[in-house]
């Protein structure tokens, strides 16, 4: 018992986010008389989280290597407008338009990375300049008619559509149930496998009771989510894209040399350089990844709105940065995980969604979001300290 309470205290940071998320869910569910947790709203919430989560994933990499990107909000808005123009004014089909936009994002990332890493301008300044210019470009692009409506069905499906259902079992979509089941089994399998490997190497593992609690808890959460989704139309394409992005970048960070290099540079750039890692190259890669993901977020948002508007992307950068910090990224670099940032993004999106449902004005919303961000970081610092002293 003593051992597990010690373990819990040392790892409270990792569980803290989930606890916070659970509190938010319970709170809003009761405050909105259950609307918050209704199948419709959850489905909505996921699609709202989508573009923020994608941005937060990229932001995680940027923050780990001790940089920041303020431009992602307006850049995603601008690229959303460009994709809309490509499709409506130039009649380019959706898929080529999407590819062009992703590549466009990559080129901007290349320029940012070059300015930051090679020329040596602080990322804060480079991306602040980017933020201002992209805001201008967004206004310019949408100048003609204000809002550009997108009529391409395929494109609009990305942000609003669902995977094929293959019929229903007891009123629930079959494909979603199957995927949920497979997901839970895979989760349990990999957790057990990882634990066994750790044990084999005599590394510290969570106490067995804890481990089971975690398995049961996460499986229950997935089940609940799946059931809620399956009542309606099932798993959305946005969710598929988000899961894919999170999976890819988690893998990059944990299992590839690039990931190690990113953590190494974040922890000590000089040591990384002397270890044969090219800080310039890795920084450029990270900005390219960030801006491609920003393009993806722009596509998701435009698709969801079925249009591009002059206000598209406003404030996304703040939600993404806040999400990353709530998710455990450290402002001094070297620390952070993509899954953490996903949870952080979900916290921020849930706040927005819940408060929208309650009909709170944006003034109150901003105040509360700011407060939550500070609280999250305070909590982070406190738990880190107690971890050092315990």
């Amino acid at each position, binding site marked *: 018992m003593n051992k597990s309470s010690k373990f819990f205290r040392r790892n409270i940071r990792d569980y803290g986010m989930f606890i916070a998320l659970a509190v938010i869910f319970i709170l809003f569910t009761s405050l909105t008389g259950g609307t918050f947790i209704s199948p419709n709203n959850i489905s909505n919430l996921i699609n709202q989280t989508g573009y923020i989560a994608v941005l937060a994933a990229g932001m995680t990499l940027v923050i780990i290597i001790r940089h920041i990107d303020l431009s992602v909000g307006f850049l995603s808005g601008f690229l959303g407008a460009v994709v809309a123009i490509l499709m409506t004014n130039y009649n380019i089909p959706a898929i080529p338009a999407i590819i062009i936009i992703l590549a466009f994002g990559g080129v901007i990332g290349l320029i940012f990375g070059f300015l930051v890493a090679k020329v040596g301008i602080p990322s804060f300044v480079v991306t602040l300049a980017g933020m201002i210019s992209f805001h201008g470009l967004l206004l310019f692009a949408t100048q003609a008619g204000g809002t550009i409506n997108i009529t391409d069905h395929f494109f609009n499906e990305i942000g609003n559509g669902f995977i094929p259902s293959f019929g229903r079992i007891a009123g629930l979509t079959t494909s979603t149930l199957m995927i949920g089941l497979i997901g839970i089994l895979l989760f349990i399998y990999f957790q057990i496998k990882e634990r066994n490997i750790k044990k084999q190497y005599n590394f510290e593992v969570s106490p067995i009771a804890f481990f089971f609690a975690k398995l049961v808890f996460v499986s229950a959460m997935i089940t609940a989510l799946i059931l809620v989704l399956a009542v309606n139309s099932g798993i959305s394409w946005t969710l598929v894209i988000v899961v894919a992005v999170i999976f890819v970048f988690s893998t990059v960070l944990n299992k590839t040399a690039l990931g190690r290099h990113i953590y*190494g540079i974040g922890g000590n750039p000089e040591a990384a350089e002397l270890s*044969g890692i090219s800080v310039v190259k890795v920084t450029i890669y990270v900005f390219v990844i960030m801006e491609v993901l920003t393009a993806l977020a722009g596509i998701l948002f435009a698709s969801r709105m079925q249009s591009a508007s002059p206000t598209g992307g406003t404030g996304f950068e703040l939600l993404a940065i806040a999400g990353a910090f709530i998710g455990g990224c450290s402002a001094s670099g070297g620390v952070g995980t993509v899954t953490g940032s996903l949870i952080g993004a979900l916290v921020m999106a849930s706040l927005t969604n819940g408060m929208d449902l309650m009909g709170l004005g944006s003034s109150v919303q901003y105040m509360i979001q700011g407060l939550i961000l500070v609280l999250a970081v305070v909590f982070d610092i406190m738990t880190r300290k107690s971890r050092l002293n315990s």
Partner: protein
Amino acid sequence: MGNIDYILEMDNIGKEFPGVKALDGVNFKVKRGEIHCLVGENGAGKSTLMKILSGVYPAGTFSGKIILNSSEQHFNNVSDSERAGIAIIYQELALIPELTIYENVFFGHELKKGQFIDWNETIVQAKEMLKRIRVNINPETKIKDVGVGVQQLVEIGKSLSKKVKILILDEPTAALSEVDCDNLFQILRDLKEQGVTCIMISHKLREVISIADTITVLRDGKTIISIDATERKVGEGEIIKHMVGREIEDIYPKRKDIKVGDVCFELKNWTAFDPSKGRKILHNIDFYVRQGEIVGIAGLMGAGRTEMALSIFGNTKHYDIQGALYVNGAKKFLNSPKKAIEEKIAYVTEDRKGNGLVLIQDIKFNTTLANLKRLLKGFFINQHEEVNLAKKFFKEVGIKAHSIEQSVGTLSGGNQQKVSLAKWLFSAPKLLILDEPTRGIDVGAKFEIYTVMNELVKRGVSIIMISSELPEILGMSDRIFVMADGTITGILDAKDATEEKIMEMATA
């Protein structure tokens, strides 16, 4: 016995970190006005004990009592201990490079006239302080423009300005030249006259013997012995025996059947210009290393030894270089550490915390960082292989930690140094450049590192060892290059070398 005047008694101190008992019932008594040296192996718990005394680890996070001037103390933070007259100077200096000496000295407790800082008074007092620490420098000089030796003294001056009664120095001399060390010790003796009590941690036993009134030895978190050094002369051997629990015959293990091969690395007419300093830092260096030999590079602080290593190892400081570099007879341009690593060169830096290790990551991460290629299976790192190899090198260099997953920042200095070594052994080098390889390391660990070096040269690796410790240079090298002012002032064969000869060349 009961009438000895102790200013400080630490009674039955215990401190645990997750997985390690750093201190286990330590008793530590310091007499008023003495210089008390604390020695022990890396990880023995010296720094931890001093952090407890100075309030870094607050009351309640450890067991036992701190009794200062016969009254028990409960420090909740560093300012509490400062108020009680305790000041600690860490090995990593806490000065602000961009500020002047006088600004640094009064940083945090500025002299004020009304609401504003009284700069004139500050400068006057800073001047007085500099006199007290025998530094003849304008207090308006910026900290970044003075050497480490002076910085160290300014740190002491800073604590003097806070009316310190007990001054703690954690390895103050590790990065100092001999001259600076002598200065420092002179100041400590001055302070002693003025009634300040000093506690000094050091791994340099020679200086411990020369300055200590009392020597306390810690081993594995326990007090082994407190020796009164005022009554009789204490020998190095005696201290070592208490520190490691056994006798070490010869600190520099002998190599048998040395097989030196052909020249494998050479510099010809190597000259480097540092654009940031606007001057040449290396002049016309001709230098070579043969396979399987240890070449020592001796010299004073600032002789250009580290600069030479950096200029070879990928030139990260972007010097303008003239001259040629040959690896196995072929001319190479190594313009990034990556290229140097590809040529099987490795460089263990002198500043392991600054540019050697990623402190927030664990031992495994650091061990493999410089050569992840060795672990790649397609796109992915083979984590199974990684753990096995990290463990192998962990054992090979003898790191003491609870697992390869312990973060490097929580290791003692000596163990951090061993991690640096493991990291570069993992890159399987043919030429290993060691910059101050045993700085801040205890005798036992030194011996282990020397043994590893001997093992490496036996396998045909060549080693360049930069060191400021002459006994080490003499004890380990096959050939010795002496540097001064960015150029080579002498080459000696190990057989003919003596400390005097080297010093003569180093000051030429």
